[in-house]
C-alpha cells in the first residue's frame, strides 16, 4: 500500500493512500465529531459535522469521505469549524422533537453527547415541533420519528450488511422520513428479518428495543464489529 504524508493540525503524519482523512485523524487520536458516519458503512457525508479545512479548498471538506492525498494540509478545528458544527447540531435539535428527558436513550445518546461536547447549552433556532408519528407495531422494536436525525445508518446497514433493504427514505427535504417497505407499519413488513442491526446502530432513541423506559436503552454493537471492520478494510482494498 503506497504511503503518503500529510499535515493535520500542523503535525506531519504518514498514512496509507486509500485512507480517509477521518480514519487517519482517529488513528492518531485526533478527534473529529461525526454523526451519520459509521465505520464499515458506506460514507454518506450528510451530517457535515466532520467538515475540516483543507488548504487550497474554498470550502471545508467532509473528513469521512475525502481520501487523503500527498501533501494535504488539514485543520480539524478552528473557531469557524466549531461554530459551524454547533449550528449544525442546533439545527438537528430544532428539527425534530428530541425531548431528552423522556427518551429511552437519555444519557446514552450520540446527539445529546455531541451537543454537550460542542458547547451547546441552548438552541438559537425555532423548534419546528413537527407532528410525527411513532411506529410500535413490530413485536420487539419501535420507531419514533420524532427522534430521527436522518443519518440513514439504519438504511445502510439493513441494505449492505443484512441485505434486507427494509428501510428507505420517503419524500425529500424537510419532509423526508424513514419508511419500511411501502410505508407500511413496521409490524407488517415482510422484508424485515428482526435482526435488530438498525436499532443497534441508531445514534438516538429513534429506533429502540421495546420494554425500555427512559434512559434504559443502551445500544449493543459488538456483534457487528467483525463484519463492519471487514467492510472498512475492504473499502481500502485490504483484508482482516
Amino acid at each position: 500500500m503506497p504511503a503518503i504524508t500529510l499535515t493535520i493540525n500542523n503535525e506531519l503524519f504518514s498514512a496509507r493512500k486509500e485512507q480517509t482523512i477521518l480514519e487517519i485523524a482517529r488513528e492518531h487520536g485526533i478527534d473529529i465529531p461525526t454523526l451519520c458516519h459509521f465505520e464499515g458503512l458506506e460514507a454518506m457525508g450528510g451530517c457535515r459535522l466532520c467538515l475540516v479545512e483543507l488548504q487550497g479548498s474554498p470550502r471545508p471538506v467532509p473528513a469521512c469521505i475525502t481520501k487523503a492525498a500527498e501533501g494535504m494540509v488539514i485543520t480539524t478545528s478552528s473557531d469557524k469549524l466549531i461554530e459551524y458544527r454547533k449550528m449544525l447540531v442546533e439545527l438537528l435539535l430544532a428539527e425534530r422533537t428530541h425531548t431528552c428527558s423522556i427518551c429511552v436513550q437519555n444519557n446514552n445518546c450520540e446527539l445529546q453527547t455531541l451537543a454537550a461536547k460542542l458547547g451547546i447549552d441552548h438552541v438559537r433556532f425555532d423548534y419546528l415541533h413537527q407532528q410525527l408519528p411513532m411506529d410500535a407495531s413490530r413485536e420487539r422494536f419501535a420507531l419514533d420519528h420524532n427522534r430521527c436525525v436522518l443519518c440513514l445508518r439504519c438504511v445502510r446497514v439493513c441494505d449492505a450488511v443484512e441485505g434486507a433493504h427494509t428501510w428507505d427514505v420517503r419524500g425529500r427535504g424537510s419532509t423526508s422520513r424513514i419508511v419500511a417497505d411501502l410505508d407500511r407499519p413496521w409490524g407488517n413488513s415482510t422484508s424485515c428479518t428482526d435482526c435488530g442491526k438498525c436499532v443497534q446502530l441508531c445514534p438516538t432513541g429513534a429506533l429502540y428495543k421495546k420494554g425500555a423506559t427512559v434512559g434504559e436503552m443502551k445500544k449493543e454493537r459488538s456483534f457487528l464489529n467483525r463484519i463492519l471492520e471487514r467492510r472498512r478494510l475492504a473499502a481500502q482494498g485490504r483484508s482482516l
Partner: protein
Amino acid sequence: MNRGELAELAEATLQKQQACRLRLLVCCGTPCVAAGAEAVVAALREQLTGLGNLADLELVSTGCQGPCSRGPLLTVLQPGQPEQVWEKVTPELACTVLNTALQQQHLPEQNLLPQDWPFFNRQTRLVLANSGRIDPESLEQYIARGGYESLAQALHEMTPDDVCDGVVQSGLRGRGGGGYPTGLKWQLVRKSSGSRKFVVANGDEGDPGAYMDRSLMESDPHRILEGIAIAGYAIGADQGYIYVRGEYPVAAQRLRKAIKDAERAGLLGSRVLDSSFSFRIDIRIGAGAFVCGEETALLGSIMGRRGQPRIRPPYPAEAGLWGCPTLINNVETFGNIPSIFSIGPQAFSAYGNGKSRGTKVFALCGEVVNNGLIEVPMGIPLREIVYEIGGGLANGATFKAAQTGGPSGGCIPAEKLDTPVDYENLQALGSIMGSGGLIVMGEQSCMVDVARFFMEFCLDESCGKCVPCRTGTVEIYRLLSRICNGSASQRDLQTLEQLCVMMKDTSLCGLGAAAPNPVLSTLRWFRQEYEAHVKDRRCPAGVCSMNELPLHLLGEQLLQRISALRCDGEEY
C-alpha cells in the same frame, strides 16, 4: 446519408425556399399558441388551400421568435425585401397581410414592428440562429440552414482531439450556470479510461423564471442532437441521453421525433454520415425535482434512483453513469457546439468579454416592456438589456433590481446597471450567471419578500440528504417570514446572516451552497429594506403585511392592557 447527400439536400431545400415569392413564418412557441397562434395558422392554411397550395407560397409554424409578450407573431419573408414582423396577429390581420402581399400592394402597418426595433437589432443570435426561422419538426429545414454540417466536418476532417481543442479555443463555458470551461471538461472525459462513455445533456431546467432550454429544445431540437453527437465523437462515447424536464412534454416529443428523423437519415445511429462513428441518443424524462439539475443527482435520476447529489470526487468525468466516464453539459452548451464549428472557434471567441466568450441566451421577464427570449454577446451591460432590448420598465415603474440565476443567484441593484453581464462580473456582485433567467423588478417589489420566495422554493426542492440544506432552508424561511410579518427582532437578523454563511460553506451540493445567495445578495444591496422591516416594522415596498408583533412589543402591549384592567379595579 453521406456528406455529399447532406450538402445536396441542403442546397435543394434552400433553392426551394429561395424560389418562394412569399414565406410566412408563424411563431408557434407556447406563449404565442396561448395567444391564439393556432387560429392564425389555420386561417392562413385555409387561404393557401383556397389558392391551390401554390409551390411558391410557404407557411411555416416555427418555434419561438423571441418577443413572447407580443404574440402571436408573424414574420414575412419576400425575396429582395427586408423581413417584416407583425405582433399580436389575429387571423384577419394575417389574411390581410397574405392577400396584400400576393397583390404586391403596400402591406398593412397595423401591429407591424419597426424595422430598427432594438429588441431584434441588439441581439446576436448564434444558438438561437434557427429558432423562429424553421419548423422544428423539419429535418430538411434544419439542414438547409447548415445543420449537421458541423458534425460532418468533425467526423470527416477532424480527430476527436481536434474537436476538443476547437471547443477549448472557442472559450465556451458551461451555460447551465456553473461556467466550467467546456473544452477542458471534454478533454478530461476523453482522457478518462472506461469500457464505455456517455454524454448527458441536462435539459432539466428548473429555475423559476427561466425557459431558455425549453424554448431551444422546442424550437431547434436538431441543433442539440448535433451538438451531443459532436461531443460523443470527441470523447469517444456511443450513447447519449437528454434529460428533459417532466414539465416540458412538447420539448420531449419534438426531440423524440428529431431523433427518429435523424436516425432514419443516417445522422444518428450506426455509421453516422458514412463514418465509423456510431451514436445513439435516448430521452429520459425528469419527474419533478429541481435538484436533478445538479450533475450527480441527475446521474442518479437517469439510473432510476432518488435524485440526491453525492460528494465529488469522483467527478462524473471519471465515474458517472454506471461508473463510466460521463460528460454532462447543459442543452444550451450543446446548442453552441454546431455554431463553434460552423463559424470557427476563433470567430466564436471573438464575441464576449474577458473569460466569458460567445453569447448567452436569457429569458427576459418581469416588469419590462418587452418580455421574451433574447441572445446577447457576453459582457453586454445590464442596462442595455433592460432599457434597449427590454424597452425599459413597464407602466413607468422605476428599476429596482434584476434577478439573475434564480434561486441560486441574486439581485443586482440599480447602481450596478452598467455591469457587463458575464460570469465573473455577476459573481462579484454576489449573483451568478445561472442558466439565464433575468427577472426585472420595479419599486413595487419587496426584496425581503423576494428572498423569502426563493427560500421557500429551495426549502421545497431540498433533497434532504445534508443537514444544513434540509433544516437550514426551513429555519431561514421562518426567519424571513418573521421579518415579513413584522415580528422579527434584531437578533433574528443576525441569526439569519450567520445561518446563511454557514449554509453556503457546509452544504453538500451546489444547490444548498447557493440557496442562501438570494438572501445574502439582498442583504448586501438592500439592507436598509431589512432594517426597515425589523426596526420600524415597515415594508418600504408595501408588499409585506407586517401584521404581527415581535414578542417584546407584545409584552409591552400586554402590560399596558393589564395596567388598564387594574385601573378599572379588575383582578387579572
